[in-house]
């Protein structure tokens, strides 16, 4: 700031200083006269607060025409905001004049202008601009705050009522502009301004072309967004000086009626303008209009001709595209469309381009529809499916639209019989695709033809094979679905002169199965079987046939699943069988249609509430039983699940209760006591009566056994019978080989050998008392001289058992040679076969499991087995028999089961 000199200057101060304001541009123009200098000091103050705004030395020359000096200054603050005081003085080096009189540019914050205002309002500025906004507060109100958008900004006080803020580097505005808001102390909006911040236009890629060889159509890209919207701020375009009112939004195009060869596009908005130019010869920018009036003068089955017309001069152009085919020719207006399909609807449209100086393809014409004529169908794809040796079905696939060449009206099947030199012709409707035939003529031929209104197809022939392949003898292997189909491959077959056929069907299907097939060329040895009919969880069987002119030969078979699933049902007929402390579970295989995958095996679980404990994993899918061993008394639930590659089924559960044998034991004791009572009665009768001599005889014929063996038939209802007898057998030498029940057929005693006599009296009892004496003959007990003595000796002997044995049907029980209390008894040789299953019946062991071919039985010439419960008198054990299954498994006999069930109350 230069201060004036105290020395009186020779320079005169500027006169008639005048201020002119352009508020829109915020420009202040200062003019003065009589300066007589070329350099001046200018000082600008805010009038109200006397704050210095500008103090600058400027060079201003005199306008010779007017004799005035003029200096312009652009204020950063809108000139409306507050009053400015301006004064000027002349300067010549260090010599300065007096200041001119102060001129004031009044602001709008003067007291007589009471309203609230904000400036500048509605300005449009480029992105990045800096701007100062001022708020003039209404007279009498208190200033509150300034907001730029919704952001509070810091203000600067310019006068008593004026507050300003400066925004730098402004970003693009919203479509409706950026608001600057002024509020009073009550946060009430009292004034505001909108500023539109955006860009000048920047279009690109101006290209002009002609469609009709006359007019011009120019297009360009809009380019960068201006962020300026609305009638006053949007971008306007002119092309060669003519307005382009239709150039809006994204449709940047403009047309002229005549081809000029040079075009200038001007894009203009409030922030500026941008120019683009383009130039070209007419022949190089031809994009033809669309052809019109398309026609099809000739339409056939496999081709058709299409014609069209041109507008105006375009007909002289070359080159057209129709559909996906290109045709060229001068003035082209008709083409022949080839490789069409019969009886097919087509839609054709045409566009054209200039062959010479090709620029772009023209617009498509309107489409024209036509339909080709029909033609005779192709020969059906046929196959012969043999349901049995003499019953088969001729199958053929429905013809697709591209094969039928017209609506199929029906099929004709001819059955040739060469031996009889005859033929049988059958006409079938179009909805039938198979014909059952009774194949009697091996090697005969079947011909199928299809018919449509255009004619009959070529015949499709198949020969009935002379020998049916034995499908069951052909190994079948698994094939896996690979996501798109079943890949099959095979070794080439010499007799496959006409290729191979692969057919397949649902393996579970038993009647009228849906058979599909594909034919494979002779030089191929693999194929991918694909079908839209494949379903998850269904097993398909694939058969490969070699085809020749004479017959078809089955070569290989596969089966597989498109997707394996878990079985849809559980194993059927799951049942438990108690075998002492073991439980054998048996079940049947899941029916094929429910397997839904290859059964890989079974898992056996012990079920406890909802918890499953795995007992066994049976990996042999053919094995359908499992024995759970060494169970203690109690109730059990077993679950058996079959599993496939997809997982296990829901599981079949079965329960079994291993009963305690308290009741069973009591009943055994009661029965034993009753039996013993009956035995005593019988013995008493026998010893006191008529049979003494017989005892003696038998004692001699069965020496050394030391056993008393009694057999009885039928029930335990003992009653005296003429056939009943008691044998007391005693031998001085112990024969271990006869350490078993000794049965003596009645015929042996009576010497009649009449079987019928036995069966006539099934309830009769035969008693064989066998006194067993251990050791050598010297240790033998003396022969009993009477029945009482014998009886006494028998009862006295610790090694004497009295056994009741019923001889009736097929089972027999030998007496227990060694009771449970005598473990010292040797158990070798045949005795090993008598060992009962460990742990059976809760620790009670049956005495024996007698077999018909046992040495003892054979030795005695006994060819029948006994049924009943042998009872050891000494141990009072009621001994349950074992039955022998055909697989060597032992099951309780039906009688014992019945009796056991009776005791336990089971049905």
């Amino acid at each position, binding site marked *: 700031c230069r201060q004036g000199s105290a020395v009186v200057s020779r320079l005169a101060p500027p006169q008639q200083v005048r201020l002119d304001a352009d508020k829109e541009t915020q420009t202040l123009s200062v003019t003065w006269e009589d300066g007589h200098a070329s350099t001046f000091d200018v000082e600008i103050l805010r009038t109200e607060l006397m704050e210095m705004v500008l103090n600058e030395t400027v060079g201003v020359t005199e306008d010779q025409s007017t004799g005035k000096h003029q200096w312009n200054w652009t204020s950063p603050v809108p000139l409306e905001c507050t009053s400015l005081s301006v004064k000027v003085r002349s300067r010549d080096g260090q010599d300065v004049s007096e200041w001119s009189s102060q001129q004031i540019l009044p602001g709008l914050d003067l007291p007589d202008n009471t309203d609230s205002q904000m400036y500048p309002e*509605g300005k449009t500025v480029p992105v990045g601009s800096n701007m100062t906004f001022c708020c003039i507060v209404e007279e009498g109100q208190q200033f509150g705050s300034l907001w730029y958008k919704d952001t509070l900004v810091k203000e600067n006080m310019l006068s008593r009522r004026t507050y300003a803020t400066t925004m730098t580097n402004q970003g693009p505005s919203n*479509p409706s502009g*950026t*608001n600057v808001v002024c509020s009073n102390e009550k946060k009430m909006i009292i004034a*505001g*301004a*909108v500023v539109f911040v955006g860009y000048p236009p920047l279009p690109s890629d101006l290209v002009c072309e002609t469609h009709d060889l006359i007019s011009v159509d120019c297009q360009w890209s809009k380019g960068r967004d201006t962020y300026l919207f609305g009638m006053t701020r949007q971008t306007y375009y002119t092309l060669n000086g003519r307005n382009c009112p239709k150039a809006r939004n994204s449709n940047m195009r403009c047309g002229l009626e005549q081809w000029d060869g040079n075009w200038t596009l001007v894009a203009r908005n409030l922030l500026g303008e941008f120019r683009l130019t383009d130039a070209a010869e007419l022949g190089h920018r031809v994009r033809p209009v669309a052809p019109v009036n398309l026609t099809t003068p000739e339409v056939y089955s496999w081709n058709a001709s299409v014609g069209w017309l041109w507008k105006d001069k375009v007909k002289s152009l070359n080159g057209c595209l129709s559909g996906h085919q290109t045709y060229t020719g001068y003035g082209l207006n008709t083409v022949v469309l080839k490789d069409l399909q019969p009886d097919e609807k087509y839609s054709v449209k045409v566009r054209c381009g200039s062959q010479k100086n090709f620029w772009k393809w023209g617009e498509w014409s309107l489409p024209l529809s036509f339909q080709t004529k029909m033609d005779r169908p192709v020969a059906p794809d046929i196959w012969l499916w043999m349901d049995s040796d003499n019953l088969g079905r001729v199958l053929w696939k429905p013809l697709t639209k591209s094969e039928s060449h017209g609506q199929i009206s029906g099929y004709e099947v001819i059955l040739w019989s060469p031996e009889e030199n005859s033929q049988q012709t059958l006409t079938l409707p179009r909805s039938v695709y198979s014909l059952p035939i009774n194949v009697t003529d091996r090697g005969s031929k079947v011909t199928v033809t299809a018919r449509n209104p255009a004619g009959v197809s070529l015949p499709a022939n198949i020969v009935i094979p002379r020998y049916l392949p034995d499908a069951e003898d052909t190994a079948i292997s698994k094939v896996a679905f690979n996501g798109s189909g079943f890949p099959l491959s095979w070794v080439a077959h010499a007799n496959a002169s006409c290729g191979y056929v692969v057919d397949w069907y649902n393996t579970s299907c038993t009647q009228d199965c849906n058979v599909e097939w594909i034919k494979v060329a002779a030089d191929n040895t693999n194929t991918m079987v694909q079908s839209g009919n494949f379903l998850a969880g269904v097993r398909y069987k694939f058969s490969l046939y070699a085809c020749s002119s004479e017959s078809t030969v089955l070569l290989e078979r596969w089966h597989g699943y498109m997707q394996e699933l878990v079985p849809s049902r559980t194993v059927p007929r799951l049942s438990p069988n108690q075998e002492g402390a073991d439980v054998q579970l048996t079940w049947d295989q899941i029916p094929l249609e429910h397997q839904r995958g290859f059964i890989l095996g079974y898992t056996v679980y012990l079920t406890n509430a909802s918890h499953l404990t795995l007992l066994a994993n049976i990996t042999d899918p053919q094995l359908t039983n499992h024995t759970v061993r060494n169970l203690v008394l109690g109730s059990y639930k077993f679950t058996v699940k079959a599993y496939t590659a997809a997982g296990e089924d829901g599981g079949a559960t079965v329960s079994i209760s291993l009963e305690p044998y308290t009741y069973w034991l009591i009943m055994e004791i009661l029965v034993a006591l009753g039996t013993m009572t009956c035995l005593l009665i019988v013995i008493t009768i026998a010893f006191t009566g008529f049979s003494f001599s017989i005892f003696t005889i038998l004692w001699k014929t069965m020496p050394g056994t030391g056993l008393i063996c009694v057999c009885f038939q039928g029930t335990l209802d003992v009653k005296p019978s003429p056939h009943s007898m008691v044998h007391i057998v005693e031998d001085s030498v112990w024969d271990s080989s006869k350490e078993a029940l000794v049965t003596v057929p009645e015929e042996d005693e009576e010497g009649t050998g009449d079987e019928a006599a036995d069966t006539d009296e099934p309830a009769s009892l035969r008693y064989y008392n066998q006194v067993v004496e251990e050791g050598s003959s010297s240790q033998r007990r003396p022969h009993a001289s009477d029945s009482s003595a014998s009886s006494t000796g028998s009862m006295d002997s610790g090694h004497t058992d009295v056994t009741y044995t019923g001889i009736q049907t097929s089972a027999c029980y030998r007496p227990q040679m060694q009771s449970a209390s005598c473990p010292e008894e040797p158990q070798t040789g045949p005795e090993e076969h008598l060992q009962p299953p460990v742990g059976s019946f809760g620790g009670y062991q049956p005495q024996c499991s007698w077999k018909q071919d046992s040495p003892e039985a054979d030795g005695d010439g006994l060819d029948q087995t006994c049924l009943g419960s042998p009872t050891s008198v000494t141990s009072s054990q009621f001994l349950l028999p074992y039955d022998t299954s055909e697989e060597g498994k032992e099951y309780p006999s039906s009688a014992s089961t019945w009796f056991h069930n009776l005791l336990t109350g089971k049905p």
Partner: protein
Amino acid sequence: MSGTRTRRGTVSEQTRTARAAAVAEQLHHECTLLLELYRKKETFAEELTSGGDRLVTVPPLSSQLSPNDMLWRLYSALQQCRNLLEHAIGREEGVGNDRNRTEYESQKKTVRDRLGHLLESTRLLLADGAGTAAFTPDPNNTEIDGPVNGSPFALKLWIYRIFNELEHWTLAASKTLKALHPDGAAPKERRTRGRARGRRTRR
């Protein structure tokens, strides 16, 4: 007006009043949303109020008034609201094509339609029905027609004030109509037009 009047009004009146109250409540909700959409579109700070004098001028709704007079004043206020809204729609330049503008324009149309519905519902509740005369704004109030100086901000602020008036009067309508409903506290009482205070113009 159909139906026979009783001390408690007819069933059809009750239904109409209830329906009008429901429409007013819904409209108030929609006006609140419209105001919020506009505020966001114009990035007005939430804590600032639009200020200025009321654009809608009717005598105050007092509890001392008869139900019919209350309805009358309410109806007049809503009429003025509709006129203001139509003015605003006519003067606001629809610029931009972003999602905010689409949502805003849609809501503006919804409010306009619903306001017409509420006006018709309210008119049917008035004692003299179709032959009504409504309070009209003071002709000296130049703010009714909006700013004339071409200031974009003045136009925005004027629209903002109109939407605030809409929000205010639809809330008043909702409360008043609920109060006039027979289930509410105020029994309906027939009053003549002549008793209504304020200047009226036959429509």
